[in-house]
């Protein structure tokens, strides 16, 4: 079989048959995954993009309405603007902070050896693996004086009366941000741990010879550049998680939350899609706007990551 990576050296034009013969291994390897990917991901996404231009209540056939879902969404829907604002605040804080936390903790855990390392990985990954772990926060933030946080603050004399944490507008978003940060050592974190494991150890020896003096320099000049592929992966996971936040908001603050203080783009979407309004076309339009938002952010972040270690 011909090596598939070598480009044709000479300028002659290959026939389709020659091309396929040369690359058939590549296409055979791609086939199973992309068959199912097309069926179960690409087609549904295309269908959703199409639906965003219709009015579709899931009972009657979709009706073509052109751009009106989008104009309604961006110009008339005040609640969407609020959800948009909340999502942006939320994503701009939790995204970078939790990305750095993932990296920091993965790197620190990598400093430990053997059993201790496995144990620490489990402990830090625990919130992501224990199912509905964030329900713990329901107890901590309970609004009466028996809630753990209220109890603690009252006993320490910081306040006189219990605070209804999830029913007070100004606390909702900050609390959700804290919970999300606590939950955020998930996919990216484990990928970083595995990435650190594959960094070539001879790089560290060479760096020590070249005059790298401490672990911080080593991190910036050796480790991070060596695991750039994982950093890019982690960034995408972080973006999809921080912009698509909905679960913790619905579970802790309720949907709708008090004065929509915890509403996000996805809770707004769920209102129309799975909620009582049954307007799938409108929900699809919301999804498309969120999609564009994430794609733009991703472009920006990938550009920043190219500068790591330089």
């Amino acid at each position, binding site marked *: 079989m011909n090596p598939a*990576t070598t480009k044709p050296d000479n300028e002659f034009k290959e026939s389709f048959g020659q091309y396929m013969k040369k*690359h058939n291994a590549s296409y055979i390897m791609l086939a199973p995954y992309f068959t199912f990917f097309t069926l179960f*991901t690409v087609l549904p*996404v295309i269908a*959703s993009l199409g639906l965003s231009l219709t009015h579709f209540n*899931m009972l009657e056939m979709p009706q073509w309405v052109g751009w009106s879902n989008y104009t309604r969404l961006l110009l008339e829907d005040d609640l969407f603007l609020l959800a948009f604002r909340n999502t942006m605040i939320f994503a701009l804080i939790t995204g970078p902070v939790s990305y750095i936390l993932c990296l920091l903790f993965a790197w620190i855990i990598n400093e430990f050896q*053997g059993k201790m390392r496995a144990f620490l990985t489990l402990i830090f990954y625990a919130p992501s693996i224990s199912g509905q772990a964030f329900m713990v926060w329901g107890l901590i933030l309970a609004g009466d004086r028996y809630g753990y946080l209220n109890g603690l603050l009252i006993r320490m004399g910081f306040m006189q009366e219990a605070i209804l944490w999830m029913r007070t507008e100004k606390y909702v978003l900050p609390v959700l941000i804290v919970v999300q940060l606590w939950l955020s050592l998930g996919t990216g974190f484990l990928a970083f741990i595995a990435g650190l494991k594959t960094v070539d150890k001879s790089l560290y020896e060479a760096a*020590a010879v070249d005059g790298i003096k401490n672990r911080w320099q080593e991190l910036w000049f050796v480790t991070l550049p060596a695991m750039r592929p994982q950093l890019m992966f982690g960034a995408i*996971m972080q973006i999809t998680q921080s912009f698509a936040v909905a679960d913790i908001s619905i579970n802790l603050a309720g949907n709708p939350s008090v004065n929509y203080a915890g509403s996000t783009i996805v809770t707004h979407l769920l209102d129309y899609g799975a909620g009582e309004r049954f307007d799938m076309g409108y929900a699809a339009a919301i999804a498309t706007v*969120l999609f564009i938002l994430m794609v733009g952010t991703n472009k920006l972040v990938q550009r920043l990551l190219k500068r790591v270690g330089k």
Partner: protein
Amino acid sequence: MSENTVATVEIEETEVAENRIREPKPLNQSRLKRLFHRERRINRSAAGNGLLFVLMAICGAFMALPLVMVVNNALKPIDELLQFPPRIFVRNPTFENFSELFYMLSESWVPFSRYILNTIIITGFGTVGHVIFASLAAYPLAKHDFKGKNMLFSMVILSMMFSWQVTQIPNYMIITWLGMNNTYLALILPATAFGMGLYLMKQFMEQIPDSLIESARLAGANEFMIFWVIIMPNVKPAWLTLAIFQFQQMWAQTGHLFLRSEELRPLQYAMQFITLGGVGRAGAAAAVAFMLAAVPITFFLLCQSRILETMTTSGMKD
């Protein structure tokens, strides 16, 4: 196990050091330095180690909270579970909750073993299938040059940014159209082509030096042999990590959307159904919460220990 790993490291290091002695390069100073640092790792101060340890202990206590609560709740007798205000730690531990759970599951209409079988089929095929399909597709995307490569890859990345809540309905229609409604396939086949796994595998495979693949080709290996003998062993931490993610996802599937026959439903469904019983079933529900967390954690620990065994092989050096 950890001792073995340390031993291998030392053997490797001595070998490297010996090689360096034979090499005529002016590396005398660094060789001394390296021998001096044999016991510790390069560039590590004791104060720094201590500081990191304290930091990890504090943060760890905070992060372990859900695990601690799940374990304690599972062991609490019913009066402690319903106690107000709730306490974190159990005072009179008991296994009542588990016997109640197993009694309820054995009383169910469909035999308990059937739920377990369903879970094994759905989780097993969903996990293994995804790891294989995603790795297989990731290799050409990372290391081959062909038409449409960038387009395929950006399609996968973009798909991860589209809200799944919206694509659920077209997805349901497609599965019905394929006649897969109310079969295991409705859960397994879409799971084999999730976007994240392909991206993860591709990123790790990119790090494998081309020279390694090229030398295998010169030795006469075809692309499938290269994939199996060179690529997969070198990205073992990656596919073990992917297996953890995918197992977690598949384990959490209740299949309520597609599986209408009770005989096809997984354990997750049966157990979550029990928790809907309200206060009367609080004990069994606590045991359920424990079981739902314990299985993926066991799988996680199995995979993590295998990840730790992987040493960065000398083959990875370019």
